[in-house]
């Protein structure tokens, strides 16, 4: 049984069905890429996995480490070991990055983390992500540039040490330096901590820096193609339209059979 098992997931937002039967399995230590054109349901999947209240699961299940999280509160999913790096991280004025991190870490523990232990972890994460020490005393995401926000996401991920992280278009809007830092951060967390990751992306760029073992292509709310890293190369050559034409008929047929 995989650590994260997504089975036949159907999701609706405001009467519109976005996901129409997604099946996906992710284990710790595995890097997956989920690719798809705009509107295919990538962000819906990311938000649903963490329990965003606007998304309604109408069918299927999300099981994580044997625990059914389909209806769990977002913070319980986080405590179970899931993490979502946001496409558009939200600014939280009035709270420093460091204080927020301490709060988040303590939320997962019974005893508050020791000051010294926290500092050591923070120092390690800072070095990993090549950010300034002063960065952690700024208010979380408040007035951050796009690159800083994404770094802050990965910094949080490094500190919270989830089993499986979902990165929702973390690469979009980043210059090449920021992209490299972020991608290398993910790779290091994978190598050092055995992080499992689902990298959601519209482009292929980030996949030049993080090598996924599994690639899934999402179209119209269903996974239409799965494979290894060679799929990324194929997508780069052929584009989504080509793939859509190829799998179009099959996807519809599969959709019907799952009802």
């Amino acid at each position: 049984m995989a650590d994260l098992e997504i089975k036949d997931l159907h999701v609706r937002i405001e009467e519109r069905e976005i996901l129409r039967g997604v099946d996906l399995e992710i284990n710790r230590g595995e890097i997956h890429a989920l690719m798809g054109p705009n509107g295919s349901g990538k962000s819906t999947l990311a938000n649903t996995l963490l329990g965003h209240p606007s998304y309604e699961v109408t069918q299927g299940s999300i099981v994580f480490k044997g625990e059914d999280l389909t209806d769990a509160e977002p913070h319980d999913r986080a405590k179970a070991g899931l993490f979502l790096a946001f496409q558009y991280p939200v600014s939280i004025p009035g709270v420093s990055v460091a204080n927020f991190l301490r709060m988040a870490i303590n939320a997962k523990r019974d005893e508050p983390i020791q000051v010294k232990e926290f500092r050591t972890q923070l120092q390690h994460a800072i070095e990993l992500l090549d950010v300034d020490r002063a960065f952690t005393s700024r208010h979380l995401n408040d007035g951050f540039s796009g690159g800083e926000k994404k770094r802050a996401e990965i910094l949080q991920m490094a500190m919270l040490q989830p089993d499986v992280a979902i990165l929702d278009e973390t690469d979009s809007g980043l210059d090449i330096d920021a992209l490299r830092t972020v991608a290398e951060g993910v790779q290091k967390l994978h190598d050092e901590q055995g992080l499992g990751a689902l990298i959601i992306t519209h482009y292929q760029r980030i996949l030049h820096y993080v090598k996924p073992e599994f690639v899934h292509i999402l179209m119209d709310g269903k996974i239409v193609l799965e494979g290894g890293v060679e799929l990324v190369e194929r997508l780069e050559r052929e584009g989504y339209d080509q793939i859509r034409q190829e799998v179009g008929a099959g996807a519809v047929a599969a959709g019907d059979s799952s009802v």
Partner: protein
Amino acid sequence: MTRSAKRLGPARLRPVTAVSESNGATDDGAGDGATANPGNGAVTNGAAPVQMKPGRHREATLYHALHGAGAGDGRTLEQLREAALKAYEAAELPVWRRSGFWTTSLESLDLDALATSVAESGVPDVVSRTLPDRPRAGRIVQSAGAVVQVQLDEALAEKGVILCSLEQAFEQHRELASEWYCKRMPIDRNKLEAANAAFWTGGAFLYVPQGVVVEEPFEIVYAIDRAGVAQYGRTLVVGAPMSDFRVQEYDLAQDFEGQALHASAFELYLQDGARCRVAQLQDWGSGEVFDVSTRFVGVGRDAYCHWLPALLGGHLVRQHLELAVMGKGGDMAFRGLFFAEAHEHLDVFAVDLHETGPSGGDVHWRGTATGESRASFEGLIQIDPGAQQTHTYLQIHTMMLSPKARVDAIPSVLVSADDVSASHGGTVGELDETAIFYMQTRGLDRAAAVKVIVEGFFEPLVAELQDEALEELVRGKVEKKLAAARDDIEAYAASR
């Protein structure tokens, strides 16, 4: 938050009233324009005089700044008490109305049932329980009508610092006290103001002599420990030229059943080059405490004041807060925060008055409300004729936490000089569900996420207290109020 600037052209010869009204959203226009300022003879362009509805109460329908000299004006304390008594006897309990949308009425106050007690001893529990354990320059505590504790650092006393009851100040430093008492404070605008001026006992007097710099705060405490008390607080603070000090006022009550009244007058004058940071922490607890107070801070030539009231609770609270730059080069930061809960009624009128220029002003308030409470904040920038080269900005931010609570924020600008900038802005916010979800994905539960947002909302002001002990106290009070309103906040989220 958006920011709007207003720069009036030089061609206007007449004082111009520019009153704008909005629900806190930025509005730099002339608003409904139907309001006038009855206080200082300024004229609304072409508008007819405001018609008052016939009825028992004929109070002003628009709040206005204190103007000109106070009641003092060469009169002795005894003469002032006598004049105030007459005003008290002639007046009804006040009702304040504004534009038909807002009424603050003291009709439910049973004033005759309350008594001013001067037979008090010992510092009430609520004081020892609330005030932080920290170094201080001095402390004066008044319980009901009597001063029950006075402490002053001996070294400061030797330097000429005076901290004593105002009664005692009139006995031992009569000339000094008389020079400043009621210098800018009126005594007869309403029955409770008159009651205070006629009946006050105890009181606090603080004088910081020329050039004396004091790091630690002077604490001035008014406490009510039971129902049935009418407390007339009277504070007079004078900072001599180049003095530099902090004042922290605490207004506290035990939780009790029944009514009590705190009607107070606070005057603070900063002479040339003096600097002062004033903080006020007010929490009247769960009793039916009425607080009707007038506070005036006068900033002299090249003087500076940072003033931050934290209004954290009271059954019915009406505050007239006025920070006036009276001398050239005077500068001020006027901050404030409020948190109304349950069935509380809070009415704040905050004035940023510039009587001369060049001068600077910066007003920044933040407030929220839970339960079925109502809060109104009206902020007025008033620039008098001749106060050229004044630059001032007013911002008010509110956050809605409950479907039944109401917060009004009304910034207005009244400018009678032509070479100035005066602007205002503000935001009306509610809990950001995206931010809550964001924090939840980090493991914080919903209540914790809400707490982070609300604390973050107040944090820019709390941090400005620049006093760790007091900051912790304010944060703790906000946290407690949020915890108490948890169901309410949930209901609000569900209703959207």
